[in-house]
Structure formats: structure tokens, C-alpha cells
């Protein structure tokens, strides 16, 4: 199922400048894998060598951080929006 993926500025050089791209998958892990297949430049940036989410990367499904849902197994459905953002401090 295709979902819309919103990319942060730092990843756009790897997507030909596109802000929103489409990727397929039934879980976040599958969506990220499909994304990296389409845009190989993102490979080292999103996941670590052991396949877990890079610590400075936050991934959201419809505004909810997947780390507090089912991580990479979090389910996505057609029409969902996946956002990738760098971890940012405040204060």
C-alpha cells in the first residue's frame, strides 16, 4: 500500500529535492526499506547497521512517534502520512 512520506530538508538532496514522496509497505520498517530502495543515498542515514532506527531520527505516523507505538513494526495503512524528522532540542 502506498503512503505519503514527508522528508526533512537534510534528506532532500537524496530525493532530487522532493519534500513528499510515495513509498510502499504495511509497516514502518517496510516503508523505510522501500524508501531506501528508491533513494539509496538515505540508506546510512535512517537505520543503523543492525537494522534499528538511527538515534537522531524520529519517524511519525500521523504525528505519533513510532518509538512509542510498535517501532519499526508499527502498522501503516493507505492514506497515512509518515514524517521523518531529525531529533531537535528545546529549552
Amino acid at each position, binding site marked *: 500500500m502506498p503512503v505519503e512520506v514527508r522528508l526533512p530538508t537534510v534528506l532532500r538532496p537524496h530525493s532530487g529535492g522532493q519534500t513528499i514522496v510515495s513509498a510502499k509497505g504495511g509497516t514502518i520498517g517496510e516503508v523505510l526499506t522501500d524508501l531506501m530502495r528508491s533513494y539509496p543515498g538515505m540508506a546510512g542515514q535512517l537505520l543503523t547497521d543492525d537494522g534499528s532506527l538511527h538515534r*537522531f531520527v524520529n519517524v511519525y505516523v500521523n*504525528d505519533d512517534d513510532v518509538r*512509542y507505538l510498535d517501532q519499526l513494526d508499527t502498522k501503516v495503512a493507505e492514506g497515512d502520512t509518515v514524517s521523518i524528522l*531529525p531529533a531537535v*532540542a528545546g529549552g
Partner: protein
Amino acid sequence: MALVGSVLDLIGNTPLVDVSQLSPNREVRILVKLEGHNPGGSVKDRIALSMVEEAEKEGVLTPGATLLEPSSGNTGIGLALVSRVKGYHLRVVLPSNVSVERRQALESWGAEIIESSGNEGSNGAVRMAEHLHAEHPKWVLLHQYANHANPKAHYEGTGPEIWRDCPEVTHFVAGLGTSGTLLGVGRFLKEHNSRAEVWAVEPPAGEMVDGLRSLDEGYVPPIFSDLGGAELLDRKTIVGPRASVKWTRRLAEVGIFAGLSSGAAMAGAAKCAQAISSGVIVVVCADGGWKYLSTGAWTDDIDVVTERARRTIYF
């Protein structure tokens, strides 16, 4: 408390106000803790005092010392207040895109401002402060993101106050900045009621910091990793500028004049209220609205204000 010896004695013991009329679920009460009632105007007065007193106890801070701190505003303002009263000199590394009132408040309490790049957000301010500290090791960097006296202020102050005023609390919602409030209050509440949930709200700041060169320039506060933040939080949700402004206005409708991050936290609480069948949500309103009047948040067209908020750091 009619007469106090020092303005610093007014830090903490903030009021909790029932704003359940704003709850989208009749079975869910929403209470806001008004941190704008602190003398420096925000929740950050608590950690400013706690970090300074801890450093004094450890002998790191001696009379006349110079403090250096990266801050998007409120921690800097809290430290400026504490430094003024206790006789320290303060330099704040402040991103250029904060509201003009934050800058003015810092200057009013005698802090010196060192500007960091706005498009690198707070991450850029942290990096610059660490760099400056390496060059000037005598300046004392309390470092709110790494200092355990930050969550401690909430574990010993904010958390017990909430428990004292509302032991029925089922959900705690607050903004994620340094993560100090969530870590300290969250741990305290869960120790007293293991079923209490902790929800974090953050702005989509990663969208605005287009100055970062790679995702490796992202930043997770050391206290969050040290104190098991990922295990403590039950949910983390993003609230965009439009919803933040909208909920800041809804708070004003019931007489609560709070800052834009309070609007974001309320939006998170409303989402929480819709997701549960019944409960009592306590939400932190980190500051009052005074420092955001220049953004036109209450008076201007919502599209214009949303666009302005997109370019301003309000967490």
C-alpha cells in the same frame, strides 16, 4: 505566603486550574498547571534555581562567577533572574529566531546575549555553547540538557505539587524540550501510581531547522538517555504551529493567557482526551502569553500567525 525574603522564594507552588470545558470528552477532565506564575515567568525558573544551587553545593560556582548557557529563551531568563539575585554574570547562547520579548527579558535581568544561527535551532545553540566552553573553561556551563538537577527540580517540586493537588491524575502531558519536566514529573507520578501515563508533545521543529547538514546533527538530551526517557514515555506526538495557535486562543477563551507551547500541550491533551474513555489529564502551561504578544497570536489572522510561528522558536 504574604511576605518573602527573596524573589527566589516565589519559585514553584504554581496553581492548577480546571479547564475541563475545553475537553473534547465529557468523561475526561483537563487541568492546567500555570508555570507562568513563577517570578521569571516560566517553568524554567525551577531548574535554573535547582542547577545553580546544586553547583554552589558542589563548589563549582563561586561568587562573581560567569555562567554560560544555551537556551531558546526561558532557561536563559530563569538563570538571568537567579544570577541577578545571587550576583553571577550570565552569557546566554540564543538562537536568532526567538521572539523579541525573550531577548528583552534576558537583557532586563542583565544577561549578555550571544547569538547563534536561527536555522540550526536549539541544536546549533548547544553546539556553540559547548565550543565556547572549550575556549573558556572558567565559564560555568550548567548545561540544562545534561544536568540531573534539571529533572530533579521536577521530581522534587512539580511532581509532588501535582500529586498533592490532584492525586486522581491519570495522564500527564507536557512539552518535550530538554525532557526535564517529563522525566522528573513522570517518574514521580509513576512511582505513586504505576498506571499513570506520560505523554510528550513536541513542535515539528525538525522541519524548521533547515541549517542542519545531516541527521547526525540531530540532538537527544543526555538526561533523556541517562534516565531512561524512552522507557518512561508512553506516547510522543507532534503538534504543528496552527494547532498550537488555535489551542493558545482556546485557552484565552477561558481566561488562561499562556504561551504558544502551552497551546501545543493543550492540543496534545485534547488528542489524549479523545483517545481514552475517562480520566484526569494534567497539562503543563510552561509560560504566560506576555513574551509572544509581538507574534500577534491572539489578534492577527490565523494564517499569518501560523506562518510567523513557523519561523519562531517557541519551545
